[in-house]
């Protein structure tokens, strides 16, 4: 691909990438602790959970939807899997059960939206509360802790010196990027978000595909749950609070439009990295956590304002 095409089709992601690199440059100058291999690997590891949740969120947002329940689904899938793990069930089976819980919650969201005709905001708002309540009921509100080394290796081991959570994150991104760009599922996601009626009149089963999109979002939340549980050696029923907002932020900074029809996983990954680097940098600079929230909120708003300004200029 030549440079002109690259800029034409990926101008938005390149812009976010430039923002990320600028931020890295600034932090390299500001603190000697930033640009070290161990710190960068830490950032990648910390980012992986939010980044994986943001994958499902991106696909949902491309279809002009929203999923507020990702954090609660993460907690629910995590505690179910953890409880099963402690019953000496083989690790792969326990993980499979955890993923199935996430997928099931997501598909339920999808069915409520397509068959029940609920707005995505309402359906997933309800699920946010139901899954959270489910996680608390399932555990009586107590964390489930202590797992085998085999399971914990999912978070603690390395592959070619790269932390396993980062490897899993990259695999999820590659798989879903492929799904979005190379399969009809992806085409339909963009088409539904761009114009649902025209898509229906083109002979596409909009209901089925939209349901699957929410199913995928539940599934990626559950994948994040596996990593988080292994990393903390504990599954908490109150895990994943506010994760939906981080995921939406990464997606939107990455160039997706809440109006639907637009967005890429490359953009979302850059968006998630940007947020991760920012948090890491602010920690290294010993900025108070209260001020950090203000700064991160500002970055989200500025990123979208700049994006809208650029788009308006194009027209």
């Amino acid at each position, binding site marked *: 691909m030549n440079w002109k095409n690259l800029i*034409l*089709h990926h101008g938005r992601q390149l812009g976010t990438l430039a923002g990320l690199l600028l931020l890295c440059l600034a932090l390299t100058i500001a603190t000697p602790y930033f640009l070290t291999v161990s710190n960068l690997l830490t950032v990648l590891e910390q980012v992986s959970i939010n980044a994986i949740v943001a994958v499902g969120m991106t696909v949902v947002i491309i279809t002009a939807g929203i999923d507020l329940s990702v954090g609660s689904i993460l907690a629910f899938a995590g505690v179910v899997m953890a409880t099963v793990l402690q019953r000496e069930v083989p690790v792969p089976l326990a993980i499979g059960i955890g993923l199935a819980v996430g997928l099931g919650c997501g598909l339920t969201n999808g069915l409520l939206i397509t068959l029940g005709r609920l707005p995505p905001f309402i359906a997933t708002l309800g699920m946010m509360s139901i899954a959270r309540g489910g996680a608390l009921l399932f555990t009586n509100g107590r964390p489930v802790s202590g797992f085998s080394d085999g399971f914990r290796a999912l978070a603690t081991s390395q592959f070619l010196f790269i932390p396993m959570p980062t490897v899993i994150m990259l695999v999820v991104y590659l798989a879903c990027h492929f799904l979005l*760009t*190379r*399969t*009809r599922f992806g*085409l339909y996601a*963009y*088409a539904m978000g*761009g*114009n649902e*009626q*025209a*898509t*229906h*009149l*083109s*002979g*596409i*089963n909009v209901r089925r595909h939209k349901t699957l999109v929410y199913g995928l979002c539940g599934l990626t939340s559950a994948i994040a749950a596996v990593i988080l549980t292994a990393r903390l050696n504990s599954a908490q029923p109150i895990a994943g609070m506010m994760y939906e907002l981080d995921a939406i932020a990464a997606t939107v900074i990455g160039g997706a439009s809440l109006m639907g*029809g*637009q967005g890429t996983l490359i953009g979302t990954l850059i968006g998630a990295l940007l947020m991760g680097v920012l948090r890491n940098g602010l920690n290294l600079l010993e900025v108070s956590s209260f001020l950090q929230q203000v700064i991160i909120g500002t970055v989200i708003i500025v990123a979208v304002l700049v994006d809208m300004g650029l788009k308006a200029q194009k027209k």
Partner: protein
Amino acid sequence: MMDAPPLLAMHRIGKSFPGVRALDGVDFDLRAGEVHVLLGENGAGKSTLMKILSGAYRPDEGTIHLAGEPQRIASPQHAQALGISTIYQEFNLVPHLPVSANISLGREPRHAGFLLDRRAMRKKAETALRELEVAIDPDSPISALGVAEQQMVEVAKALSLDARILVMDEPTSALTETEIANLFAIVRRLRDRGVGVVYISHRMEEIFEIGDRVTVLRDGRHVATRELGTVTVRELVRDMADRELTEHFPRETVEPGAPLLEVRGLTTRTKLRDVSFALRRGEILGLAGLLGSGRTELARALFGADPLQDGEVRVHGRPCRFRSPREAIQAGIALLPEDRRQLGLVLPLSIKRNVSLPNTHRVYPRGLLRKTEERRLAEECVTGLRVKTPHIEQATANLSGGNQQKVVLGKWLARQSDIFIFDEPTRGIDIGAKVEIYRLMNRLTREGAGILMISSEMPEVLGMSDRVLVMREGRLVGEFNRANATQEAVLGAALGTTP
């Protein structure tokens, strides 16, 4: 002759949209205390003229005088302040608010500048409703009212604005006989109070009952203004229809072959009543009728987008009952919808992806994208239909109307459909692209496809159809062949004035 200047005088009004000259030097005047009917086919320019009067559009040229004073109507709010009220077919009412709040919306009476004065609001509504002599509870929410009552609320709202000019766009289209009689009584009362009423309608009987004068528009031009006391229906129909077929229709007739689509007794819950016809290979079957006559509903029902209540559809001789567009497409039916931008294309997506959308079995064999095939289909569409675009990655939102229509057609050509439903195939398309679309229709019929062409443009219907069906109020009310399809005959059937 009257000495006072007329309430309204619009002089040499012109307005263009991309590719279309909507109004060309139109004159229109309205006297105080008259009902002036505005008549014309769909697309003749009636709505555009009234949108200029109500401030929704600005004219490109021409002048507007209100009671002798020149005015530039800057916005709908400005028009209201000048005493011009418009009641559109789609009401501008807020369903969940009570009648009184709707009547005062935007001009709420207040205490101390910011507290709503509900009692004054209610009183204002009561006064307006009493003047109309209608029994509507001012506290009732709009959503609890029937269509006729909502119409009365619109009229009451206009009255409370002290409207001197009232524009009514097809006000009776959803009303029953008694409701129409009530409405007419109110219109007469307004007229007797000196209000000037512009009345847009297709219904001949109504026009003669309520109107004082009539102005006929055709193709954006003023044809005639006549006194309704002396004119006949025949003369009016001729005014509306009569024109030379100067536009270019390159129809090449093809010997029709076997029936592709047979419809018997088609009925839907909403609109269609007992529709029967057959479409054969190589044939263009024109479907004429006024807006709201059920043509688009027929297209949607055939395409599986709306459910059938009763009736039989056969495709290639096989009985079919489509539950979704997907099934209709698999049977070989293609729909080019009237509203390309809302229904035909996914505008943010590229030409390439729009063409892929109904062709995923070819572009994604075994589920995975074949880029060469994706590119080939899109290139075929762009070169074969001569879509003007720099590349196939172009978002369809950035194409002109004619090129958008070609991409919609391209979607279905790649699908190798053989029953094409074109709903207003050339609306909003410039003349050059129109002829290209007609040529493509020729090519399709030559290759054995059949086309059902819904059109409100009479020259197009007459110029391109091998047979013409006419719909009115959900029924087929006439069928003509090339020899006996004249503008007057087809329009007469559509209006329901033929004996």
